[in-house]
């Protein structure tokens, strides 16, 4: 059984994000990490391999050079092989373009099962996985919180999350694609032996120009800092002064007795 997991580097959620001089993209962040939804997607694939033998896991990342770091981390977590679809420049890539590259790889390599994160922490579009499935002609289910492969490995049962604590369940024939919701599992840390192997492993690279032929279908016009919707009075002084002032404000408003 061949599984593909799509992964993406994202700027650290706690890091400073600023708009660059073009007003159309962000200044290069200092630090990237693997999108946490993708970590869950990979962990889910690893759990399948722990349970069934003869399962191989490829990871794929489309982007600039920093994609290689998350591919190596994924290999360190236990993936078997990495594919890097190379985009030359940093900057916004239309989900349609990324998806067309992924769909190409899906069709080329005959995967039985494809996992992607439910969304990326940076763009938060929730599109790439689902676009890829449709472009590759596969059925898909999003926001999956549970999966179970049948013993003959031909079918899969999944549960997906709706709002308000509801879930709905589906059965599909493989091959199919699923986007994985956060919290479905606890992603493992890379092991030292795997990391050593990962650092030496050859990552297959494909130039995106050769395979991503789709119209991007959208143009980013500009970026702005969100407007303040409330007063946003910023407390000043030392930690102690700020604490005393907040205490005064909240007492005056009778939130504290």
């Amino acid at each position: 059984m061949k599984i593909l997991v799509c992964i993406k580097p994202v700027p650290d959620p706690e890091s400073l994000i600023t708009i660059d001089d073009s007003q159309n993209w962000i200044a290069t962040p200092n630090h990237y990490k693997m999108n946490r939804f993708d970590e869950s997607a990979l962990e889910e694939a690893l759990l399948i391999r722990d349970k069934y033998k003869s399962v191989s896991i490829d990871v794929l990342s489309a982007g600039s050079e920093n994609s290689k770091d998350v591919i190596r981390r994924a290999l360190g977590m236990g993936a078997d092989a990495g594919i890097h679809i190379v985009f030359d420049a940093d900057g916004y890539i239309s989900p349609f373009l990324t998806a067309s590259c992924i769909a190409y790889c899906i069709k080329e390599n005959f995967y039985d099962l494809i996992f992607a994160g439910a969304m990326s922490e940076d763009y938060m579009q929730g599109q790439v996985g689902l676009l890829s499935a449709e472009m590759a002609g596969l059925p898909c289910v999003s926001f999956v919180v549970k999966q179970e492969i049948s013993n003959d490995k031909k079918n899969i049962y999944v549960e997906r999350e709706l709002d308000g604590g509801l879930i709905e369940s589906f059965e599909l024939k493989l091959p199919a694609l699923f986007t994985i919701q956060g919290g479905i599992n606890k992603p493992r840390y890379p092991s030292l032996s795997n990391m050593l192997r990962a650092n030496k492993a050859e990552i297959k690279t494909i130039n995106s120009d050769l395979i991503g032929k789709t119209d991007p279908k959208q143009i980013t016009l500009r970026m702005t800092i969100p407007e303040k919707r409330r007063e946003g009075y910023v407390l000043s002084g030392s930690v102690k002064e700020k604490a005393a002032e907040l205490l005064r404000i909240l007492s005056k408003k009778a939130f504290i007795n």
Partner: protein
Amino acid sequence: MAEMHKPGHKLIFIIAEHSENRAKSVVFELAACADKIKKFCPAEIKVIILSQETEKLSYEITRTTGLDTIAIEINELALYNSEIYKTVINNLAAEYLPSFIIIGHTPRGLDFASGLAVRMNAACITGVEGLSEAGGEICFMRQMFYGKINVHIAASSEPLIITVQPGTFEPYKPDNVSPGRVETRKVQCVTEAIRAKGIRRYKFQDSSIFEAKVIVSAGNGIGEMENLDLINRFADIFPGSAVGGSRILVDRGWLEYRQQIGLTGAVVAPELYIACGISGASQHLAGMKKSGFVVAINRDPKAAIFNESDICVVEDLNKFIPTFIEEYEKREME
């Protein structure tokens, strides 16, 4: 052949999300979004309902909004099925040629929106939180990077599918409307690709978070699970308080689902909301922005939560909260 829309007018489809034969509240927000698009370009709006049974839904939607509906009755749609949604809406679009299809940015809406776009060769922009017009072109605003940045996007081709973040628009419920027309049709749609098995409740909410006067809420910025202790001690200072948090802490198992504030958790409006280490992505803001008074504590001065705050405390909460508790206790002693 479908009845064509007026010459020079664009057509907008709204896909109605529903549950237990009632329209979800987001449908009326999507109608408000369509109404706003109409201000930028002459357009007709049709609400599309897909269900096994549509009469009650059509009645509710046409009476509330005055908009026309196309109600498609599909026997095979006892339970939601994305394949049926994609197939049926794609066929309907081929017949009516809408310029815009508006869908809720909800787990349901997102499940079929992107795939539908590929089938229709349409553009697709998700998580829309605003729209504007410049030079005859409609521009859509959505958030990126945990809400720290807004990006303004235009589609480079029509048709365009957008998913609209719930809570973005006030529900469109005009006074004294005359009910819209209903066109009902029956369609057969058998699919083998996905078999729906059922729907059930697996996480439970209780009323405590909704009834709290004060909510002290924790996010990723608290760092370690042990620091929840600090959040609990902080909350103890406020009478009628409850502890909540953002989704990521619930995903990690640090908080329970009933404590989750945000679109997929609880939408709350306490008198005081204190956000501790919360970045302020729109999913979370939608769950708390109706709060009376908002205090945010975050060491990142650019955190989006500060845009939704009355008082901003730019500090490491692990230093600030113990100091606050100390100051409080000192005052109590006096």
